[in-house]
């Protein structure tokens, strides 16, 4: 009997390993996709377009170590220049992709038109802007890029800048508030929701963080909106309570929106993000979306469509699509995890706690060293750990394996976690 040819009807020069990949975006998702493709033995061309002209760098430190000066430019770069050369990953920095033509399989960029076999949207997210009237010669500050961070640091470090208003009590706003407060500034945080980081944390952790900020002198105004901002010699913010706050600098961190216009205009299905299946493939075959911009079915959210803004999500989705492109279809199935660092509080979150019906606290709450375990229908779904990295790593293993520890043992601090 004759065996069928290995690649029926496909000319030899188009086997997957030789095809061309274009990646849009040079954050964690885009760079990891390129690295994983090469690790998997992909031999075709890889080209990364980035609107950002700076050499590709990691964004999480921008509101943490890079802001407080403990990490420098060099230490937040993903890879060295020689890595890109040695691995033949072409970087097109500071170059805007204007259009994606799905039927023609081309992208139109400032410098010309480029053909692809596979396209990866790793476009990330952009800052939500304050939807209020702003009068002034300057603008309030936002943080997304390294340039923003350089500008923000310079602005905050000036001696005559003493009163800081942070609008938004989420991760970014609070990390910046923590830096400013530690530097001796007088900081006010205004948050529209009734408590800090409400979207991701339970009340007890919101309160724990609130108490820490207050201990550093931060004036927290929660459940309060800003109605308008006026700049004269100082900024003046009118609040929904009728009060006003004055400040030398105003910083805004009120969340992000997925960067999906390019995909939308190309006719790819989008809603709150670029919609993808479990392989991170969009509604157009051979076109993927990964990282902050991807609205994906997440096994750790019972298969619901979610969009996650995290390093883990970006990196693991990138690894999955690299395998898929190299001919080994790989679905995305990794426990979500996140972190934030404010003062001495290092919070590590494993799993998605939304919809929990029971929680258990283990450890020393007053000593800032404890974990909160979340259950839904008696199953462990998430663990938030403050200064308990070992708990966090154990939690990731448990959630990945769908394991639920014994509640009675868990409640007993004298029993080791890995024996629960």
């Amino acid at each position, binding site marked *: 009997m004759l065996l069928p040819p290995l690649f029926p009807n496909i000319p030899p020069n188009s086997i997957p390993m030789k095809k061309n990949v274009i990646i849009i975006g040079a954050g964690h998702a885009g760079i990891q996709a390129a690295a994983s493709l090469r690790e998997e033995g992909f031999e075709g061309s890889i080209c990364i377009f980035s609107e950002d002209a700076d050499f590709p760098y990691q964004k999480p*430190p921008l509101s943490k*170590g890079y802001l407080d000066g403990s990490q420098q430019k*060099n230490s937040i770069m993903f890879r*060295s220049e020689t890595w890109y050369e040695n*691995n033949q990953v072409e970087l097109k920095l500071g170059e805007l992709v204007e259009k994606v033509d799905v039927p023609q399989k081309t992208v139109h960029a400032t410098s010309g038109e480029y053909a692809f076999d596979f396209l990866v949207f790793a476009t990330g997210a952009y800052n939500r802007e304050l939807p209020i009237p702003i009068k002034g010669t300057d603008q309030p500050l936002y943080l997304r890029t390294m340039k923003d961070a350089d500008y923000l640091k310079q602005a905050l470090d000036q001696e005559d800048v003493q009163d800081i208003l942070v609008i938004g009590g989420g991760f970014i706003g609070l990390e910046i508030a923590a830096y400013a407060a530690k530097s001796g500034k007088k900081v006010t945080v205004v948050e529209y929701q009734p408590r800090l980081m409400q979207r991701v944390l339970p009340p007890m952790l919101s309160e724990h963080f609130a108490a820490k900020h207050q201990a550093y002198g931060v004036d927290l105004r929660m459940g309060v909106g800003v109605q308008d901002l006026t700049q004269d010699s100082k900024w003046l913010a009118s609040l929904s309570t009728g009060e006003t706050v004055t400040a030398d600098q105003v910083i805004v961190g009120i969340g992000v929106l997925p960067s999906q216009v390019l995909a939308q205009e190309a006719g790819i299905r989008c809603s709150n993000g670029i919609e993808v299946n479990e392989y991170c493939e969009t509604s157009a075959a051979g076109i993927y979306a990964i990282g902050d911009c991807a609205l994906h079915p997440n096994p750790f959210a019972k298969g619901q469509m979610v969009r996650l803004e995290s*390093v883990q999500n970006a990196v693991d989705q990138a690894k999955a699509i690299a395998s898929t492109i190299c001919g080994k279809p790989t679905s995305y199935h990794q426990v979500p995890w996140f972190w934030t*660092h404010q003062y001495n509080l290092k919070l590590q979150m494993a799993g998605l706690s939304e919809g929990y019906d029971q929680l258990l606290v283990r450890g020393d709450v007053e000593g800032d060293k404890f974990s909160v375990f979340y259950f839904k229908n008696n199953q462990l779904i998430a663990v938030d750990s403050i200064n308990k*990295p070992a708990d966090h*790593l154990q939690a990731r293993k448990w959630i990945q394996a769908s394991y639920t520890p014994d509640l009675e043992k868990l409640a007993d601090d004298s029993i080791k976690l890995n024996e629960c």
Partner: protein
Amino acid sequence: MPQITYIDSDGNKHQVELPLGATIMEGAVQNDIKGIIAECGGSCMCATCHCYIAEDYLDKLPEMEEEEDEMLEGAVAPRTERSRLGCQVRISNALDGLVVEIPQEQ
């Protein structure tokens, strides 16, 4: 600049010079040494820059903080008395000639 030898996860040796103050993790990433993942970018949050330090240099290393100690307990490859997280060890002149071994799994 101090000279460091990495033995990557495939067993290949790489001799590199690292600037003072850089971490073992940064040196590995910048020099494309296989086996260091450093997912969190050096925040001591992920335990994916686990490495084994040559015995004769152990006493020249900066002391281990509690959080690094805890993270190492959760590292994928077995922890030994030579285990450190690469992101927590900064290069000093005392570390010139150091050999760092990278485990097969992170």
